[in-house]
């Protein structure tokens, strides 16, 4: 499967330009280096041990652009960001996708996380999905604000769900972006009974 609409050139704050494109099998090493260079404090927010080669192998093998859709942000040939959309093609959550985003320290607070998130939100809608979720630790204020700009809202709080590197328990927020209204509007448009169709 080929993803349409890529590569995308994005201008960040202060004029830095990055290219966002689908991650390919050949990007494995570059992505491994990117995750390895993240400070431990940032890596703790990730679901997997991204410094392990086993993880890299599993992750690269899972890329199919159908259920696992990763994109990378590149600056001067180096991977500086990664975002992945996960979805299921079967079962009771097949209308939902989960988005995970990671950005290199020098590129944080410049709009790269928002740009990566925007790309995947748009892609999720293009796949006909109805809802996206992200997990954010309560003290990730900038990330939370960026997600709110993309339409995500707090949906649930898992109290004391994560422990930071100092052993302090923190709340984990589940934020969601429900776009089912788009498909309801489309369903109304194709209902073939409204005399106002077409405005």
């Amino acid at each position, binding site marked *: 499967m080929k993803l349409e609409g890529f590569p995308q050139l994005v201008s960040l704050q202060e004029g830095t330009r990055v290219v966002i494109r689908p991650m390919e099998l050949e990007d494995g090493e570059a992505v491994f280096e990117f995750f390895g260079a993240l400070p431990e404090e940032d890596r703790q927010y990730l679901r997997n041990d991204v410094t392990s080669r086993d993880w890299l192998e599993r992750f690269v093998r899972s890329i199919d652009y159908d259920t696992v859709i990763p994109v990378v942000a590149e600056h001067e040939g180096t991977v500086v960001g990664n975002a992945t959309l996960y979805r299921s093609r079967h079962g009771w959550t097949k209308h939902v996708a989960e988005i995970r985003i990671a950005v290199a320290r020098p590129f944080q607070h410049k709009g790269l996380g928002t740009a990566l998130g925007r790309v995947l939100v*748009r*892609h999720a809608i293009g796949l*006909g999905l109805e809802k996206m979720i992200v997990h954010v630790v309560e003290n990730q204020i900038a990330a939370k604000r960026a997600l709110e700009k993309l339409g995500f809202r707090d949906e649930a709080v898992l109290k004391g769900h994560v422990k930071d590197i100092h052993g302090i328990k923190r709340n984990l927020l589940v934020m969601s972006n429900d776009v089912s209204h788009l498909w309801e509007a*489309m369903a109304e*448009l194709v209902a*073939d*009974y409204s005399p106002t*169709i077409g405005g």
Partner: protein
Amino acid sequence: MDKTEIRVGGLGGQGVILCGMIIGKAASIFDGKHATLIQAFGPEARGSACSAQVSVADEAIGYPYVKNPDVLIVMSPDAYTQFAPQLKPGGVLLYENELIKVDDRLPAGVKAFGIPATRLAEELGRKLVLNIVMTGFFAGVTGLVSSEAAERAVKSSVPRGTEDLNLRALHRGYEYGRQILSTSELEAPTTMRRG
């Protein structure tokens, strides 16, 4: 006057009228021709028979009703049963080939082209866009509206935020149509002008 008459038939909820509206809009607003649309639908929101009649011409259209269409687009077996015998001899039938079986009720010389539009729409992500797949198929097979005009008509007709999926559906139908035409010895009727 060189006029092409089109009928779209199916069930409420399949987007029959939107399909007709987009064809008319593409031809008139974006390809600079003239077009009219007549729509007929049942009292129920979904499942009732409905149809659209579209006329496209280079000059103003004085009579918008379509009795014997040059092109028939059908998305349900009932619509096929009802409208297929009314096709002009030598006309074009575009049909959903996993829902409709073509039989001998077609007038002489009709060229029939099938597409599994419902399945293609589901594969793209939403069954809802089957009418847009059919619209793309219509543009690809007949060339009556240009692909650019069809794109612009779709973009300006669907809810904001759903453009990407709808455009992918249009392209899928269009490419399917072009492919089926290139592998077929049949060509669209000469009364139709390429967009």
